C-alpha cells in the first residue's frame, strides 16, 4: 500500500474531486467506445473474482454504478451527427446491467462463506446495487432487444462509418451482447439450487468460452473514452478495509477455464461453486444424500458382502440358505445381521464428516488445503479405529454363518472342504485406510506444489512418499485379491450347486482360495514392511479378463497409485544418486556448524502429522537414511533402477490413458484427468532423458571407479580368506564345509560385510561409515541441482547445471 497515493489513501483529500464535472452516462458513444468500455468492465469483473475489492475493480465503472441513470426514452434512432444513442441506451445499458447481475449471482454464492473472506475474495458491496432484484427474464429480453436493435439500426450505421473494419466491429459488438447473455444464463444455471440446471449450463459455458476467445481477438478494436472509469471511487465508498495494491488482470485470464490442481490456482469463485455442487444441505451433486454416496463409495471400493446393504428387515442370506429360514440358528444369524446393519448405518454416519471434509478441501485454495489436510489425516485415523470394530463385528457374524453352513452340510465332504477356506475380510478398515493413505500422499505432494521444500529436504519427502505409496499399492492389491477371491468362491459355490443339482460327479481342481495375503486374519493395515528401495518396479499386468470384471474401481485406483509410486520411487532414486555424488546434501549449511538443532528433529517435525498414526508405521529418520543408501549401490546403478521405475510408471499411465472417461469415472473432470496423466508421462520421459545425461557426469564416473577399486579389494580379501579356509581344511580334519556362495537370488538381503564377501556378483560401495567425504572423494567440481517443475507441480524433473550459470 502506498500511503499518499491519491488512489489508495482513503483519508486524503483530492482538491478537485468535488468540483469535477460528473461523467455523462447519457452521452452518445461510438461502437468502438462501447467495445472498450465493456472489455474494461469485464477486466474489472475478473480482477474482482481473483480476490480484489469491488470498489477497486467493477465499481470503478461509472456505467456499472449508474446504469439506471441511462434514459430509455431518448429516441434510439435519431442521429444528429454522431452515432445513434441506441449504442448507449440499448446495447451498452443491457450489457452493463447483465454483467452486474451476473456478478450479483456470484456475490450471492460467495456470501455462503465457503471461501475465506479477505484471503480469497472480497464481498463488500459498499451498499451499491448490483441489480439483484432485476428479473432474469427481463434482462434476457433486454439483451435480445439489443441484438435486434443492432440488426436494424446499429449495423447499418457501422457499415456506413467504419469502412473496411465494419464487419469486424459489428461482430465485436454482437459478441459482447452474446457474451453477456450466455455468462448470465450459465451463472444462473450453475448456481440453481440442487444443481437442477447443471446440465443446461454446460453448453452455455462452452459458448461463453468460445465467445471469450473472440472477445480477446477483437479487444484491439476498442477505443478509449475518457473518464468512463473512476479509479478513485474507492474513497467515496467509505470502508474500513485498507485497499490493496492492485494490478488489473488481462482479458486472457478467463476464470471459466481454471479448475482443479492447475496453475495459476483456480479462482475462488469456481472453487466455491465446486463446493456447493459437491455438498449442499447434506446432498451431494444436487440429488443424492451424502450417506448414500458414502455407501456407494465404500461399496465400489471394497465390495463388501451384499447383505450388509440390504434394506429389508428380513435379511436374505444371499439366497444361500433358503431352506433353513425357520431354524433357530438361522433366526439368530438374521438377528445378528440386522444388528450389524444398524452398526453399519452408524458407521456411515460417522464416515460422513471425513468424507465431506475431504471433498470440500478440493475446493479450497491450495495453501489452506495443505493445512487442513493435516487435520483430515486425523479424521480418517479415527474412523479407521471405528472401522476396526466394524470388521471385528463382521468376523463374528461370518464365523456364525460359517459354522451353521458347516453344520448344515455335514456329511457332504466336498462342500465342507471348499468352505473352510474363506478369508476374513476387512472391508471397513480397508476403505478408511485407503482414504487415509491418499490424504497423506496428497498432503506431502501439495507441499511441492506450494514450494515448501528446500533442496535438502526433497529426498526425505519423496522417500517418505515412496513408503506411503508402497503401502497404498500393496493395500489396494490386497483389496483386489480379496474381491477376486470372493468372486471366485461365489462362482464355485454356484457351480457346485448346479453340479449337485445335476447330481453329476465333479472333477474340479481344488485351488486354494485363501492365497490372498490377508488370509489368516492379518489386518490389511497392519504394519506391513515397506518395499526395499532397490527392487523391481511394481508391475501391473491386467489381463483382458480381469479388466472386464466389475472390480474396475479398485483396479484403476491401484493402477494410478502404482504409477505414482513408480514415479515417486524414480524421483527418490535420482535424489539418492545425486546425494551420493555430493551434489545434494541432506543437511542445511549452518545447521550443524552452529548446533542450532539437529536434522532428526527437523525430520520429525516435517512429518509430525504422521507420528501418531496406527498405520502406516512412522518411517524413522535412521530408516530413511538407510533407504537413501540404496543397498550401497553406486550412483550409476541407482540411476539405472530409477530409469526402470520411470519406464514402468509411463507404461501404466499410458494404459490408463486408454480408458474412456466413463470407465475411469471422470466424466465431470475428464480434461483435468487426462492432463494430469499427460503431465506425469512427461515427467517420466523428461526424467529418463536427464538420467541418460546424469550417468555421464564426471562425479558419477569417479564414484564408479572408486567402487570398482573397492570391489577389487573385496575380491582379493575374499580370495585370501578362501585360501586360509582351504589351508585350514587341509590341516585340520574336522574343517567345516564352506557355505555355498552361489545363492541363486542375486539382489536384496546383503548387508553384513561377511555376507557380502560371499556375493561376488554384486560390486557395491563401502559401508556408509567407511565412505570418504565428497570433498575427499571427488576431483570434479560441484554442480547445481536444478529442479524443473514445469511438467508437473508434484514431481520435478531433475538435472545438473554447472555452477558458473
Amino acid at each position, binding site marked *: 500500500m502506498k500511503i499518499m497515493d491519491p488512489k489508495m489513501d482513503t483519508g486524503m483529500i483530492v482538491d478537485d474531486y468535488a468540483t469535477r464535472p460528473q461523467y455523462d452516462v447519457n452521452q452518445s458513444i461510438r461502437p468502438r467506445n462501447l467495445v472498450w468500455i465493456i472489455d474494461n468492465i469485464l477486466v474489472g469483473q475478473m480482477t474482482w473474482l481473483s480476490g480484489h475489492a469491488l470498489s477497486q475493480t467493477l465499481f470503478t465503472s461509472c456505467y456499472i454504478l449508474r446504469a439506471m441513470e441511462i434514459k430509455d426514452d431518448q429516441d434510439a434512432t435519431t442521429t444528429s451527427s454522431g452515432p445513434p444513442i441506441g449504442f448507449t441506451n440499448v446495447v451498452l445499458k443491457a450489457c452493463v446491467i447483465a454483467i452486474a447481475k451476473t456478478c450479483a449471482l456470484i456475490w450471492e454464492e460467495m456470501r455462503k462463506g465457503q471461501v475465506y473472506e479477505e484471503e480469497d475474495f472480497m464481498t463488500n458491496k459498499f451498499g451499491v446495487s448490483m441489480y439483484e432484484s432485476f428479473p432474469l427474464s427481463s434482462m434476457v429480453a433486454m439483451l435480445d432487444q439489443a441484438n435486434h436493435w443492432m440488426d436494424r439500426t446499429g449495423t447499418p450505421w457501422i457499415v456506413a462509418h467504419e469502412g473496411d473494419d465494419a464487419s469486424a466491429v459489428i461482430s465485436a459488438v454482437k459478441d459482447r451482447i452474446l457474451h453477456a447473455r450466455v455468462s448470465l444464463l450459465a451463472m444462473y444455471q450453475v448456481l440453481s439450487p440442487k444443481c437442477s440446471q447443471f446440465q443446461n449450463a454446460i453448453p452455455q459455458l462452452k459458448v461463453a468460452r468460445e465467445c471469450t476467445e473472440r472477445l480477446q481477438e477483437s479487444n484491439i478494436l476498442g477505443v478509449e473514452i475518457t473518464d468512463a472509469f473512476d479509479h478513485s471511487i474507492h474513497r467515496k465508498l467509505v470502508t474500513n478495509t485498507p485497499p490493496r495494491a492492485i494490478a488489473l488482470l488481462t482479458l486472457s485470464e478467463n476464470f471459466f477455464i481454471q479448475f482443479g490442481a492447475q496453475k495459476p490456482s483456480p479462482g475462488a469463485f469456481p472453487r466455491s461453486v465446486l463446493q456447493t455442487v459437491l455438498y449442499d444441505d447434506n446432498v451431494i451433486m444436487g440429488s443424492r444424500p451424502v450417506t448414500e454416496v458414502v455407501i456407494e463409495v465404500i461399496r465400489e471400493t471394497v465390495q463388501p458382502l451384499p447383505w450388509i446393504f440390504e434394506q429389508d428387515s428380513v435379511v436374505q442370506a444371499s439366497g444361500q440358505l433358503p431352506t433353513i429360514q425357520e431354524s433357530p440358528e438361522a433366526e439368530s444369524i438374521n438377528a445378528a445381521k440386522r444388528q450389524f446393519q444398524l452398526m453399519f448405518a452408524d458407521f456411515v454416519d460417522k464416515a460422513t464428516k471425513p468424507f465431506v471434509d475431504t471433498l470440500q478441501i478440493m475446493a479450497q485454495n491450495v495453501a489452506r488445503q495443505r493445512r487442513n489436510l493435516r487435520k483430515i489425516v486425523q479424521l480418517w485415523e479415527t474412523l479407521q479405529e471405528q472401522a476396526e470394530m466394524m470388521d471385528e463385528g463382521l468376523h463374528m457374524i461370518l464365523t456364525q454363518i460359517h459354522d451353521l453352513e458347516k453344520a448344515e452340510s455335514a456329511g457332504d465332504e466336498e462342500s465342507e472342504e471348499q468352505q473352510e477356506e474363506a478369508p476374513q475380510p476387512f472391508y471397513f478398515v480397508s476403505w478408511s485406510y485407503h482414504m487415509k493413505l491418499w490424504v497423506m500422499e496428497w498432503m506431502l505432494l501439495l507441499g511441492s506444489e506450494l514450494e515448501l521444500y528446500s533442496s535438502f529436504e526433497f529426498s526425505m519427502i519423496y522417500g517418505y512418499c515412496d513408503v506411503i505409496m508402497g503401502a497404498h499399492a500393496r493395500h489396494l492389491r490386497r483389496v483386489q485379491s480379496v474381491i477376486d477371491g470372493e468372486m471366485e468362491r461365489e462362482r464355485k459355490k454356484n457351480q457346485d450347486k448346479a453340479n449337485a443339482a445335476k447330481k453329476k460327479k465333479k472333477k474340479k481342481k481344488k485351488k486354494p482360495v485363501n492365497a490372498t495375503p490377508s488370509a489368516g486374519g492379518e489386518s490389511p493395515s497392519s504394519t506391513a514392511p515397506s518395499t526395499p528401495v532397490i527392487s523391481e518396479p511394481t508391475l501391473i499386468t491386467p489381463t483382458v479378463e480381469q479388466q472386464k470384471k466389475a472390480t474396475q474401481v479398485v483396479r484403476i485406483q491401484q493402477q494410478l497409485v502404482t504409477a505414482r509410486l513408480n514415479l515417486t520411487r524414480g524421483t527418490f532414486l535420482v535424489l539418492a544418486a545425486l546425494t551420493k555424488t555430493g551434489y545434494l546434501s541432506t543437511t542445511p549449511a549452518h545447521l550443524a556448524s552452529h548446533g*542450532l538443532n539437529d536434522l532428526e*528433529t527437523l525430520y520429525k517435525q516435517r512429518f509430525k502429522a504422521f507420528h501418531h498414526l496406527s498405520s502406516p508405521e512412522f518411517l524413522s529418520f535412521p530408516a530413511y537414511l538407510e*533407504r537413501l543408501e540404496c543397498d550401497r549401490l553406486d550412483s550409476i546403478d541407482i540411476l539405472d533402477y530409477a530409469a526402470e521405475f520411470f519406464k514402468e510408471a509411463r507404461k501404466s499411465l499410458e494404459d490408463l490413458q486408454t480408458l474412456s472417461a466413463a470407465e475411469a469415472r471422470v466424466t465431470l473432470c475428464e480434461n483435468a484427468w487426462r492432463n494430469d496423466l499427460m503431465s506425469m508421462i512427461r515427467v517420466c520421459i523428461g526424467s529418463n532423458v536427464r538420467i541418460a545425461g546424469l550417468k555421464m557426469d564426471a562425479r558419477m564416473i569417479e564414484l564408479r571407479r572408486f567402487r570398482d577399486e573397492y570391489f577389487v579389494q573385496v575380491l582379493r580379501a575374499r580370495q585370501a580368506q578362501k585360501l586360509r579356509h582351504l589351508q585350514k581344511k587341509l590341516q585340520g580334519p574336522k574343517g567345516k564345509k564352506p557355505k555355498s556362495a552361489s545363492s541363486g537370488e542375486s539382489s536384496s538381503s546383503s548387508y553384513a560385510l561377511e555376507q557380502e564377501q560371499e556375493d561376488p556378483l554384486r560390486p557395491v560401495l563401502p559401508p556408509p561409515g567407511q565412505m570418504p567425504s565428497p570433498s575427499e572423494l571427488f576431483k570434479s567440481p560441484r554442480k547445481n541441482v536444478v529442479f524443473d517443475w514445469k511438467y508437473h507441480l508434484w514431481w520435478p524433473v531433475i538435472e545438473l547445471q554447472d555452477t558458473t550459470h
Partner: protein
Amino acid sequence: MSTGTSTSTPPTPLPPIDYVGYESEHQLAGMMALIENDLSEPYSIYTYRYFLHQWPKLSFLAMDREKNVCIGVIVCRLDFHGHSKLKRGYIAMLAVSKEYRKRKIGSTLVLMAIESMKTAGADEIVLETEYTNQSAIALYQQMGFIKDKRLYRYYLNGVDAFRLKLFCKPEAQELPTDEVPIMSQ
C-alpha cells in the same frame, strides 16, 4: 548494555561493525529509518514500541563503528504460543542496509537473536516472509528453518507468505520404537 562486539573479520574490506543489544529509544530513529527502506509493510512507531518495550533483550543492532549509524537490525518477541506450554519466538523484523549486504551481517544478527531466544527458553522460532524473498529465505534455510506453511495472500499487497520455522529442541514426544525393516518384502 552491549551484548557483544564482534571482531570477526569479514572477507572483503569492511568498516568495523559492532553488534549491540537494544538499550533505549535513542536507537529507535536509526532502526526505523533502516527498516522503512527495506520491508514491504510499513510499521507505525507503536509497532516498534510494542516489541522493544516488552522484549528489549531480544533485539539487536549492527552499527558501523566509524560512522556510528545503524546498518542492521533484528527485532523479536517471545511468548507462549496460544494456550499451549510451547514457547514460541518470533522474528518480527530483520534488515541490513543495502551497501552492507552479503557479508554475513544478517546471519550474525539472526544467530544472536536465536541464541538469546533459546536462552530464554524458546521451543521454536517462527517468522513470515514474502514467498518471493529469495535472500531472506535462503538465509533462514541455511540455519535449519523450514517452510512450515504457505499463507495465501498474507500481505496487504495480495502476495503469499511463507511461515518459516526453526525447532529449537528435540521433540519430546515418543516415537514408535521399532523401525520399518527396509530390506524385507
